[in-house]
């Protein structure tokens, strides 16, 4: 307890620590937001809750890591992971997801849970259970007498994440396929009547989600580390963000992603790093409860 109070005191004594925590949180949150946006896309368009989301992220990380091990430049990992994970996502869609779209919601949850277990274990068998990372070899920038350190690698990561997000937004807004995806999300049957091949749209959306996650993973392996069993924690965060922001609300997803990144860093600072995972899950429960109370207020009865 004393330690917790001491940690909180530290925040007021040295306000610059706050800045560091918020900066770290935004960097983490930008990547969470990417995975969450993919989830919101799949959830909104085909009503599939993908619990394997985090494992797509980790797989992308391993694609990039494997490339670097074979002598390719690390920054190439991001586009390659995008393409490779696109392919893997398409195969998974054809084998599993296409058969659970029409079913009840629990089916997709459980099927993707099974997928998550499989993917984590295959990664474990292929690459071993050690944590892996890619060192870009860039400098670290220092501000405020060394109180705040910003590795250039992280800056590049955030920039790439923003570029990717911007690319996806422009694609969804202006391209023909983006229009078709949005139309299908609004009303799949009406879209079908208007001549949109919804099956194709579903396959495309799921592959796109997988590719976004893969690229996010390739960034994560450059700035932090990956491990076969870290997937579930990214899945949980993606769920927290989407549940908090709602579907089809892209600015909301980004804001929630950044906010959760920052909250988690604060929690880790105050309670200790051991509680980081617990804090992410508690946030999920908190968001669900708040939503529940909001809805309860909307419920109307005759008196």
């Amino acid at each position, binding site marked *: 307890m004393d330690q917790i109070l001491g940690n909180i005191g530290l925040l007021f004594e040295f306000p610059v620590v706050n800045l560091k925590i918020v900066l770290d949180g935004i960097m983490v949150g930008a990547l969470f937001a990417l995975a969450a946006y993919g989830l919101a896309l799949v959830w909104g368009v085909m009503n599939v809750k993908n619990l394997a989301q985090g494992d797509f992220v980790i797989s992308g990380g391993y694609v990039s890591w494997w490339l670097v091990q074979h002598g390719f430049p690390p920054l190439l990992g991001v586009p390659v992971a995008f393409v490779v994970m696109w392919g893997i996502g398409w195969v998974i869609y054809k084998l599993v997801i296409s058969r659970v779209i029409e079913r009840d919601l629990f089916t997709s949850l459980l099927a993707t849970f*099974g997928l998550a277990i499989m993917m984590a274990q295959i990664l474990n068998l292929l690459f071993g259970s050690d944590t892996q990372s890619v060192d870009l070899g860039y400098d670290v920038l220092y501000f405020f007498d060394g109180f705040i350190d910003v590795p250039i690698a992280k800056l590049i990561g955030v920039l790439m994440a923003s570029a990717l997000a911007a690319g996806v937004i422009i694609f969804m807004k202006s391209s023909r396929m983006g229009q078709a995806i949005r139309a299908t999300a609004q009303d799949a049957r009406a879209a079908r009547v208007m001549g949109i091949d919804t099956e194709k749209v579903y396959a495309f959306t799921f592959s796109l989600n997988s590719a976004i996650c893969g690229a996010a993973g390739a960034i994560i392996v450059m700035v932090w580390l990956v491990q076969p069993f870290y997937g579930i924690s990214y899945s949980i965060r993606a769920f927290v963000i989407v549940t908090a922001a709602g579907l089809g609300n892209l600015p909301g997803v980004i804001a929630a992603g950044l906010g959760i990144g920052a909250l988690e860093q604060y929690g880790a600072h105050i309670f200790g790093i051991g509680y980081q995972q617990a804090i992410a899950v508690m946030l999920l429960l908190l968001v669900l409860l708040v939503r529940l109370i909001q809805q309860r207020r909307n419920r109307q009865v005759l008196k």
Partner: protein
Amino acid sequence: MAKNKIILYALILAFTFVAPFAFPNFGTQLATLWLMITVALTWDMTGGQMGYNSLGNIFFYGTGMYVAALISIGMVYDVGDYTNAAGGGIYKFTDAQYFGGLFLGIIGAGLFCSVTAVVIGYLTFGLRGPYFAIGTLGVAIAAGELVSNWDWVGGGQGIALPVYPGDLDTGKIFFYFLFAAVGVSVFIFVKWLYGTRFGAAINAIRDDEEKADAMGIHTLRYKLYTWAMAAFFVGIAGGISAFQLIHFEPLESAYQTINLGIFMVVCVLLGGKGTLWGPVVGAILFHLFKEITWNYLLGWQWVALGALIVVTVVYFQDGVMGWLMHKRPEWFGIRVEKKVAEAAE
């Protein structure tokens, strides 16, 4: 009850008694089989019969483990000293202390889990469909993470309980019969329950909650009672597991979300959701599959298991019982008019 049914039940009961002596090498596996049957049957109470798919029933298993261990230790020693391995103290339990702690611990675990089920259920039963599943999964994961940071109960190291005082083989048979007793009681209990008005009410909630509400069923109360009953048995099973395993730690053995937590759901789906025998059949099939892959597919067993989950959920969701019901409806007392059946084909 028909004559063959009585014979069937008598045969199963006889097998239950003979099995540990007939196959002494498989004592632990057989005990685990009863554990799987117990958790599958209790999962089906909410998941199959009431339509609330929980992914967090493992929470009660882990909590049951901890409560049983803490009660049995706390009756004799100070828990904080006991779990503090650095103290280096030697803690001995007499036979009376061991068995007293075991039985009180197990009962306490069941009761405590029932109460927590009501509390958590009150907060989460407003969530519908997948949100309920995610919410309960969150509860289980959060509990595991919090307990592994709680030093008073041993933190990430977990707790080591005393070893069974008799010899090893007697201990195995003792725990087998404990698990078997719980499994048989659960089966008898749910068989009785599904025949009552209560069973009809929870089925009504599954079929259409709004209508059930409108017909005057106090849905929240029914949901809480059902979950509390399921939690009672899961907590007891967890308590027995704690003593059987001797040493357990929070993330891998107590709150094992991706192991037992998901296995119980797969057992039910494999056997057939919402049927009496489905969870039992599913648990047996799943346990066989698991033991075989663990022995012969070493390294790939988890991949095989994940594949089994995906295949079951995607292609074979009605389960064995659902498939049988479709193929042989007369076994279930459903009469199909020949003409209608022919016309349908």
